[in-house]
């Protein structure tokens, strides 16, 4: 049966091209793979191959023709001895009709806006994190993280920990202390210093049905593994149409420690929070560290769990409960107040809380919200608070551009514009690489004083 050969699209963006040269003539027999013609695109000259065997019946577009639209019939091919005049005549006047290809996909109808969420804003979840009257015990963030991993490894054999110095050294920051003795080398695995490789390997293990916990000694080194975290872990569920994803935890110290210089002092909260497919947690207290890490290990998605070296040794009250978890997407009101909302997370909370205490001495009652998880983000609690206080200050250690604070400012101005009595101020790290000198480092970080000053500005007091 005679068929038309159509002007091919030879690149993702090609709409038309020049038929530079025919390498066959009417009556020639061709095999699949034979070069039929040379076609010039805006980028290059390409060879155009036959996809079927047959005889060239008629050539419909002469060589040298410019501006031949994709899908225009350029020749007719058929079997030997076949009369191709019918197909040829129908194609003879076709070159002007660019959309001649009956198989061309239909133009998509104008896409109606598909809403991701129902219109009604969710109400804040104010349920207590643990039942009233539960006994608590004082422990460090370090102990809380260690307990969380031990409990989850006890609960599920598919959970394992891998990273640099996590096993025999007992953890560079001693978060994994005792885990090797308790769970053995099958489940607590020292890696070579090879972040890109072991992160990819852990993603593969998650595809294979395990629940890896990857410890980065610090998140600075995870930049070596960024491709595997974003491209492989975060996107696969979507790219596979829901068939398979990477349920796993990436955890470790994030942000500035003290005097360790520019390459070891970066807060990645906003980077990871930008990525659909990842969940991101950044706890401040030991209770949140424990409850959120247990949730992270059980979560069916890849979770970024951002810890802080300075907080590892701080002590907080943790409930004595058999199985204590904190859900993602539920902020904590760390201090109630009515004059201004201070929103923070991670180590930023230490500045926020200290500032709130000092402001109270001057009669300014700040409501302090600890976000705890950055994706999903509990915007309902923030908006609810701003509707009460009419003012917001955000506090974080990361750089200003694209920060969590700037995002919150945009969300609040969209959702609660009429309630705002002052512009939102975001206290962030300074827009510079971290310096080494003690005085400059102090200047580069945000501080309690900066938070107090910001609150005075938005409250005009």
């Amino acid at each position, binding site marked *: 049966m005679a068929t038309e050969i*159509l002007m*091919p*699209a*030879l690149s*993702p963006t*090609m709409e038309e091209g020049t038929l530079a040269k025919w390498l066959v003539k009417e009556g020639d027999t061709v095999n699949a*793979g034979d*070069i039929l013609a040379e076609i010039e*695109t805006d*980028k290059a000259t*390409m*060879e155009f191959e036959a*996809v079927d065997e047959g005889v060239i019946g008629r050539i419909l577009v002469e060589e040298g023709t410019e501006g031949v639209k994709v*899908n225009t019939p350029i020749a007719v091919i058929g079997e030997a001895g076949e009369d191709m005049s019918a197909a040829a005549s129908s194609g003879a006047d076709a070159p002007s009709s660019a959309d001649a290809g009956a*198989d*061309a*996909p239909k133009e998509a109808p104008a*896409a*109606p806006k*598909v809403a*991701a*969420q129902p219109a009604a804003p969710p109400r804040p979840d104010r349920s207590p994190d643990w039942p009233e009257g539960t006994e608590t015990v004082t422990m460090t963030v370090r102990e809380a993280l260690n307990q969380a991993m031990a409990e989850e490894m006890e609960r599920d054999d598919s959970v*394992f920990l891998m990273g640099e110095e996590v096993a025999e050294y007992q953890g560079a920051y001693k978060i994994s202390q005792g885990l090797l003795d308790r769970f053995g080398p*099958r489940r607590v695995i020292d*890696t*070579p210093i*090879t972040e*890109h*490789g*072991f992160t*990819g*390997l*852990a*993603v*593969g*293990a*998650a*595809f*294979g*049905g*395990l629940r890896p916990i990857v410890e980065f000694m610090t998140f600075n080194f995870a930049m070596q593994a960024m*491709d595997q975290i974003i*491209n*492989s872990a975060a996107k696969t*569920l*979507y*790219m*596979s*149409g*829901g*068939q*398979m*994803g990477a349920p796993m935890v990436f955890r470790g110290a994030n942000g500035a420690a003290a005097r360790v210089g520019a390459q070891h002092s970066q807060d990645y909260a906003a980077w990871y929070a930008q990525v*659909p*497919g990842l*969940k991101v947690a950044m706890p401040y207290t030991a209770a949140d560290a424990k409850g959120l890490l247990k949730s992270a290990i059980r979560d*069916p*998605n890849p979770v970024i769990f951002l810890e802080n070296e300075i907080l590892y040794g701080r002590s907080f009250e943790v409930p004595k409960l058999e199985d204590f978890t904190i859900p993602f*997407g539920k902020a904590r009101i760390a201090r109630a107040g009515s004059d201004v909302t201070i929103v923070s997370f991670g180590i930023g909370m230490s500045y926020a809380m200290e500032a709130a205490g000092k402001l109270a001495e001057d009669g300014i009652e700040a409501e302090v919200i600890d976000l705890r998880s950055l994706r*999903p983000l509990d915007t309902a609690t923030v908006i609810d608070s701003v509707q009460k206080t009419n003012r917001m200050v955000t506090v974080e250690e990361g750089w200003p551009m694209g920060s969590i604070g700037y995002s919150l400012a945009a969300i609040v101005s969209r959702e609660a514009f009429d309630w705002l009595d002052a512009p939102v101020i975001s206290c962030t790290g300074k827009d510079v690489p971290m310096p080494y000198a003690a005085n400059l480092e102090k200047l580069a970080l945000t501080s309690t004083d900066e938070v107090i000053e910001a609150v005075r500005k938005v409250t005009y007091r």
Partner: protein
Amino acid sequence: MAARKTTRKPNVSAEDLTRFYRDMLLIRRFEEKAGQLYGMGLIGGFCHLYIGQEAVVVGLEAAADEGDKRVTSYRDHGHMLACGMDPKGVMAELTGREGGYSKGKGGSMHMFSKEKHFYGGHGIVGAQVPIGAGLAFSDKYKGNDRVTFAYFGDGAANQGQVAETYNMAELWDLPVVFVIENNQYAMGTSVKRATKSPDFWERGAAYGIEGEAVDGMDVLAVKAAGEKAVAHCRAGKGPYILEVMTYRYRGHSMSDPAKYRTREEVQKMRDERDPIDHVRTMLLDGDHASEEDLKAIDKEIKDIVNAAAEFSKESPEPALDELWTDIYADDVPQEA
């Protein structure tokens, strides 16, 4: 092109030979059709064809058992067909339709099948190599004897994460066969312009990994080498490297004018070393099949490919609310 070391060919049944012919032909005809649909604008973006390399996946699949895993790069259509994925689902993914393996959301480079133990389809050169080692890690952790095939090209072989993976795979005795499909060109850069250490399989020695080079245009040689590699892994001896010397007839992607090699070079390979012609000749010369038998197979394959193409055109585009699904495995609100 001659491999430095080729495992001895075993005896092969007429039935196996016929199956290899059929499986390779399916890949070739499927890819030709994909090229055609691309030319018609039905397939968009990137589309990397496997034509010329068919003996690699067909030979290695013949060495695999049920439950063995595979992961590869973006030149993945052949791997999917060879492990038994439905040509309709693959073609419909190429056209970005609802009936595709990823519901149209993945495209040519991103397809997966849990059922067939195919773990992608990865678009970043070399990223699938540690993932393959991780799949092998999961089997070793679970205590079964499954093996993972991690396919990558001569281009990826120079990636740092491949070296990192060799080190860990041997350190932990992971049951992974690293399959380097050396088609001699990393996009437009020939092997000799990319490295002074062109025998990629020999690099395993630096990590204590055994390996060999094999003629990738000879499906029986690939199968024999694959069986040896799989036996090594299943016996708990750790990873194995197979450098399979092959050749791609088409450009790197559809939009590659392939000016970095001569037309004669390509034609010579097609005329003298074509892996499908090779098996066809064996079938005919050995009186294992007649011209009519092979014509019947050609017809059968043509029908399968045409049906796949039809399906890929008729399957609707994904519903618009698919934009918002499969981002998380549970219910998580998105910013909107």
